[in-house]
């Protein structure tokens, strides 16, 4: 097991180091998130103030998922293009760590994006608005929990899709239904906190999602991965 965590950490660090040097993906994801938020702002422009606040609580989740999808598109690109994948499969390591390493790296990227995204959402939708804003603590907790699930499930399906033809088209089709429960729970937590309702249930569901997807992907990845 310790070998698993060590390998995971090494692989995640490799991805993050590559990203820190090129910054391609972070910039693209950040700009994409910003542009989507601007579009969301105009798309809801006709709604009344209270409605817009409610809509924003859902839209921010949509933006997070779509931004994650952008990251996932490139997730296994280097491995496939440069033949690294075969080397990883030949190496005497726990193969589940390949998935876990990708998931950890993507979680870190998502966190980075959200640090920018959340304040901007506040600025665009809640600043100066009389409507009740969601609790910042709840939103951050929900996003932190959801990142793990998005990265875990996303890396799993991205790995499957990376072996297929037309993987760019395939990934969203595989990814979005799989993360639907996450979006439902995340929106329920966000909207619930704005309306002063208890949010333990949705937060718990996010946790359960992470656990279920984590165990399934960790257990299955070794059997599923192909050269």
């Amino acid at each position, binding site marked *: 097991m310790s070998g698993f965590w060590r390998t995971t950490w090494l692989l995640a660090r490799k991805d993050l180091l590559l990203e820190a040097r090129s910054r391609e993906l972070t910039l693209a994801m950040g700009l994409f998130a910003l542009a989507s938020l601007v579009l969301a702002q105009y798309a809801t422009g006709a709604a009344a103030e209270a409605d817009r606040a409610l809509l924003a609580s859902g839209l921010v989740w949509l933006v997070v998922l779509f931004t994650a999808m952008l990251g996932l598109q490139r997730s296994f690109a280097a491995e496939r293009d440069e033949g690294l994948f075969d080397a990883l499969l030949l190496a005497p390591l726990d193969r589940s760590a390949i998935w876990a390493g990708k998931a950890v790296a993507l979680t870190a990227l998502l966190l980075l994006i959200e640090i920018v995204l959340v304040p901007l959402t506040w600025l665009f939708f809640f600043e100066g608005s009389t409507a009740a804003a969601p609790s910042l603590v709840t939103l951050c907790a929900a996003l932190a929990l959801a990142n793990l699930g998005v990265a875990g*499930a996303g890396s*799993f*399906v991205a790995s*499957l*899709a990376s*072996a*297929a*033809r*037309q*993987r760019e088209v*395939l990934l969203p*089709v*595989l990814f*979005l*239904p*799989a993360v*639907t*429960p*996450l979006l*439902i*729970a995340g*929106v*329920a937590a966000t909207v619930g906190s704005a309306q002063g309702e208890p949010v333990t*249930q*949705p937060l718990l*569901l996010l946790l*359960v*999602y992470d656990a*279920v*997807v984590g165990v*399934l*992907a960790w257990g*299955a*990845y070794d*059997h*599923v991965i*192909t050269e």
Partner: protein
Amino acid sequence: MNLRSLGALPVAIAGTLIPFALLLVVFWVPDDADQGFSQRIFYLHVPVALVSYLFLGLGAWYAVRYLRTRDPIDDLRSYVAIHQGVIFGSYVLLTGPIWAKVSWGQWWDWGDRQLNVFLILFLFYSAYFMLRFSVDAGPRRATLSAGYALLGIGLVPLSFLAVRIAETVIHPTPLIRADGPQIEASMLVTFGLMLAGAAALGFALFSVELRGKLIDERMRRLRRRLRGEAVL
């Protein structure tokens, strides 16, 4: 055991039970106290939904088996089961809104638990075919498909919980409770017969499709052998 006779049995059962149960639905069962005549679509909608779930579950089960045995037949069974599950699922998604329109006054109720879980699963398993047909036939395709089908096992309970959290209102109460069935015996009998008929129909279609796929495979091999290619 003879393959042919085994395949004919579900066809015979379905061919008898479904028309018979349909007659019961129209002429025998009483009107629902609350919804009246329109509630009778329940005898079509719910059994087919249960059979659809059954086949999606069967597909996941064969996927797990494939990952353990690596036997191509398990991959084929998994694929055919999911295919039947999705076909039955389309029927559920067709009858569900009709029932909803008549009894709730709207085509789709986003607060309804069963309908929405079903929709999520339907989308998920429809994507299964996208994945499957983007990979060339062989062990790799089988493995990837099995991995994706496996993820569906986790998605069912998670979707149920999620939709439950998001749900707002009504749904007809469950049929059977601890203190005995809530519905009349005639309704339960009709429902049971229709369920058995739908399940038999499912298995009949399953075995026909499976056999067709196996024959295809054999034909392909024979053709290649005729052309003088080396065949495993």
